[in-house]
């Protein structure tokens, strides 16, 4: 059993035995489980048995439940123990249908977990969170461990606070401290202190609240995560301790810049921006951070000062801005910040141009660098083995020479008959050949030949590998594939556009318009329209039945009511005539099928494009990496090749 396995069952205060069911979540201290027989209650089970103080705190909290708090927090309702009696956890109301707030504030997870949530929604969540914390404060509690996983958000923007057993509470004349904290939400004055020894205040909570509000409004960016312009590592903890708010008015003085692509503090109203400045200012350390109530009021105010972007309906922004900050951010990063809730079946918008910019931004790795491989002529020293081999061969040759020369003095200097002399000479020649064969047999250079061949082949192989991995071939091939996919996508888009004419320009509506256009008011005897009125109507662009509609007629000053109604009646009559002629609406399935097929093709290509982009990035990095890691191997193989070539040359002489 690993330390994280839960006990099979637990016992509550009244001695009821409870069986744990599915695990709902996992935290640092323990895990939360469903109960087998009760759907409204959850059990939090710690990894380690609780200290007596912790158990007492849970009992005290269970005793002080209140309705106002129960609505917004998973307040402990009872203590749980192991069968042995050791306290191990607590009971609390189960929160369903809610998700961690970090799923909401990161654009990436927001698209999946909170589809359709726009900035209005985010502001509302931040305001609701402020209201929840204000409620805790007004009930004399302190959340203490404010953090990204202690807040759950529903699809209706209401929040629930969880992990309430870590709140700091007072009951029966005793204060129960909170022993934990997450450093990135911890105010500067508490950084580095032991939480188990510090009594927290609402002013401390208000720092964590400001960080959470910031994360929520600023697309998941932490207020202290910036580009540090000084030397050394700048962790968030350190930046908090040194009041380096990366978006603040005096961020430059703190040598910190907001991250590239992140929005400026100006995207919120001056009132909300002022609260952020105050919350993160050095001067607010002891007191004076905006309270949860102040946040709620300012955020409600911001919600009333929003405007919808003219280009993208999913973009809502502060109406005091000239342009839309989200358009700018999306254009700069290629990331869709807010998902639009699209009608079923419609393909989500795929920005081919933005996508292609990302493809083009991947730098071509260029050709494989020319390696500085020495030619090695005359520079390579012969290896010791070859030296020894050559020395030995020299000796053998010398012996052979001496041996074959032995008969010579006899042939030359001893007086012998001519044929005998010739015999000795012949013997010398014969001996020479025998000795030479022996020397060759004893000094076979075959191993050097083999070694040279082997090293040549290895160099060849490694050079090919180098070309494959360090050269641009793989990159070019993948890039060509992406080019083809892009062309295919554009072709699919064109096919789609042809199969689905826009409602104004084609199809039945256009046919009706053409039909109505053939009926000029002038030519017709419209009941109640005297020809004297025609020029007036024409001057307002109303000439044929197609131009007749209520809005347009109402724009004509002093138009007789009867005349207006008569014209509309006339048009309706003509429309009915058109319907009778044109027959029932053409059956759409063919077009729908075509449309669906074209869309599916497009979606498939989009998926391939996305994977292709990822592959291309990977190949580019792999290529650059191969150049680093393979260089030594090529050089080494080349050295070995030069050596064995020189050796071979030396033994061949």
């Amino acid at each position, binding site marked *: 059993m*690993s*330390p*994280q396995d839960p006990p099979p069952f637990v016992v509550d205060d009244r001695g009821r035995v409870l069986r744990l069911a599915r695990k709902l979540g*996992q*935290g*640092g201290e323990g895990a939360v489980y469903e109960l087998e027989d009760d759907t409204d209650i959850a059990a939090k089970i710690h990894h380690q048995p609780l200290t007596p103080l912790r158990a007492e705190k849970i009992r005290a909290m269970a005793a002080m439940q209140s309705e106002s708090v129960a609505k917004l927090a998973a307040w402990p309702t009872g203590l749980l123990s192991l069968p042995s009696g050791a306290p191990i956890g607590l009971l609390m109301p189960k929160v369903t249908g809610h998700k961690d707030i*970090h*799923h909401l504030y*990161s*654009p*990436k*997870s927001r698209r999946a977990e909170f589809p359709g949530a726009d900035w209005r929604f985010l502001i509302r969540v931040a305001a609701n969170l402020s209201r929840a914390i204000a409620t805790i404060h007004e009930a004399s509690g302190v959340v203490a461990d404010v953090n990204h*996983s202690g807040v759950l958000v529903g699809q209706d923007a209401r929040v629930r606070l969880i992990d309430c057993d870590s709140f700091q509470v007072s009951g029966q004349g005793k204060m129960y401290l909170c022993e934990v904290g*997450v*450093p*990135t939400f911890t105010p500067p004055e508490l950084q580095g202190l032991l939480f188990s020894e510090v009594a927290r205040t609402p002013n401390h909570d208000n720092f964590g609240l400001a960080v959470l509000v910031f994360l929520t409004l600023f*697309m*998941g*960016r*932490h207020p202290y*995560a*910036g*580009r*540090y312009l000084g030397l050394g590592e700048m*962790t*968030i*903890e*350190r930046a908090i301790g040194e009041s380096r708010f990366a*978006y603040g*008015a005096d961020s430059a003085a703190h040598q910190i*810049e*907001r*991250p*590239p*692509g*992140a929005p400026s*503090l*100006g995207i919120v109203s001056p009132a909300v921006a002022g609260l952020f400045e105050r919350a993160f200012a050095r001067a607010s350390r002891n007191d004076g951070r905006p309270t949860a109530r102040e946040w709620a009021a300012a955020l409600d105010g911001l919600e009333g000062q929003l405007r919808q972007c003219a280009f993208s309906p999913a973009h809502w922004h502060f109406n005091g801005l000239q342009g839309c900050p989200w358009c700018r*951010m999306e254009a*700069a*990063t*290629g*990331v869709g910040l807010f998902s639009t809730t699209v009608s079923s079946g419609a393909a989500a918008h795929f920005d081919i141009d933005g996508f292609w*910019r*990302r493809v083009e*931004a991947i730098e071509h790795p260029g050709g494989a660098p020319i390696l500085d491989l020495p030619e090695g002529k005359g520079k390579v020293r012969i290896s010791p083995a070859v030296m020894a081999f050559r020395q030995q061969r020299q000796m053998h040759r010398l012996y052979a020479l001496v041996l074959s020369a032995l008969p010579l003095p006899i042939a030359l200097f001893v007086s012998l008959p001519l044929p005998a002399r010739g015999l000795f000479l012949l013997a010398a020649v014969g001996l020479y050949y025998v000795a030479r064969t022996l020397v060759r047999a004893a000094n076979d250079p075959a191993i050097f030949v083999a070694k040279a061949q082997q090293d040549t082949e290895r160099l060849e192989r490694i050079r090919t*590998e180098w070309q494959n*991995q360090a050269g641009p071939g793989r990159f070019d091939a993948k890039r060509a594939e992406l080019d083809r996919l892009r062309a295919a996508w554009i072709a699919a888009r064109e096919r789609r556009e042809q199969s689905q004419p826009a409602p104004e320009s084609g199809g039945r509506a256009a046919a009706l318009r053409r039909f109505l256009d053939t009926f000029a008011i002038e030519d017709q005897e419209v009941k109640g329209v005297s020809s004297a009125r025609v020029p007036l109507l024409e001057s307002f662009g109303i000439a044929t039945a197609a131009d007749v509609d209520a809005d347009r007629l109402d724009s004509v000053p002093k138009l007789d009511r009867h005349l207006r109604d008569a014209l509309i009646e006339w048009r309706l009559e003509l429309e009915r005539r058109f319907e009778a002629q044109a027959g029932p609406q053409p059956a759409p399935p063919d077009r729908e099928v075509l449309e669906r097929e074209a869309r599916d093709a497009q979606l498939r290509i989009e998926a391939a494009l996305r994977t292709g982009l*990822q592959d291309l*990035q*990977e190949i580019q*990095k*792999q290529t650059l*990496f*191969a150049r*680093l*890691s*393979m260089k*030594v*191997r090529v050089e080494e193989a080349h050295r070995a090749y030069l050596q064995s070539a020189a050796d071979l040359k030396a033994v061949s002489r």
Partner: protein
Amino acid sequence: MGGAGDLEQIPFGSSEFADNPEPRCPCLLLLDTSESMAGARIDELNHGLATFQRALAADSLAMKRVEVGVVTFGPVQLLNDFQTPDHFRPPLLSGAGDTPMGAAIAGGLEMVRQRKAAYKANGIPYFRPWIFMITDGAPTDDWRAAAAMIREGEMTKGFSFFAVGVEDADMDALAQISVRMPLRLSGLRFRDLFVWLSSSLGSVSRSGMGQEVPLLPPGWARA
């Protein structure tokens, strides 16, 4: 906040950080794919990698914070650059070649350095990177420079380097390379190892940035 600040140029390619500005917890796997790993060892390692991906994907916070990179050695190759578990496609490894551990470590450390530079340039907070090396042999190249770099990195808290030996790995050589005590895998329990690794990374990614996180006992290691 002056108008000039709003005209600041934004480097292209920072989209992954705009999309997901969560703090990152990079983990580099240095995997031995030398000849001796071929067969059951590499099969189990492949299963382990798949388990790793699934285990990380099951943890919604780790999914946004942990980044996995893979470098294999024998020969040294970059298989995956750092990416979050949803983009991480576990590679299928095969064993062939020698054990150029020194070159792999040098290349891996360079990757970690570049990734940290990208985090800094984009204002993304990060946890201390983990480098996790798994081998069943001994280095066949010069590893002394790599060992010196590891000592330096551990001393400056630039990263944490863990070495795991499989079966007949040369534990003495590993002990000279790694500052932390190398661990020996019990049998071929790669899957247990990767489950442990993913839950450890999960706890790290939930912790404070400068905090030392108490790790679970590695049940997959042999004393």
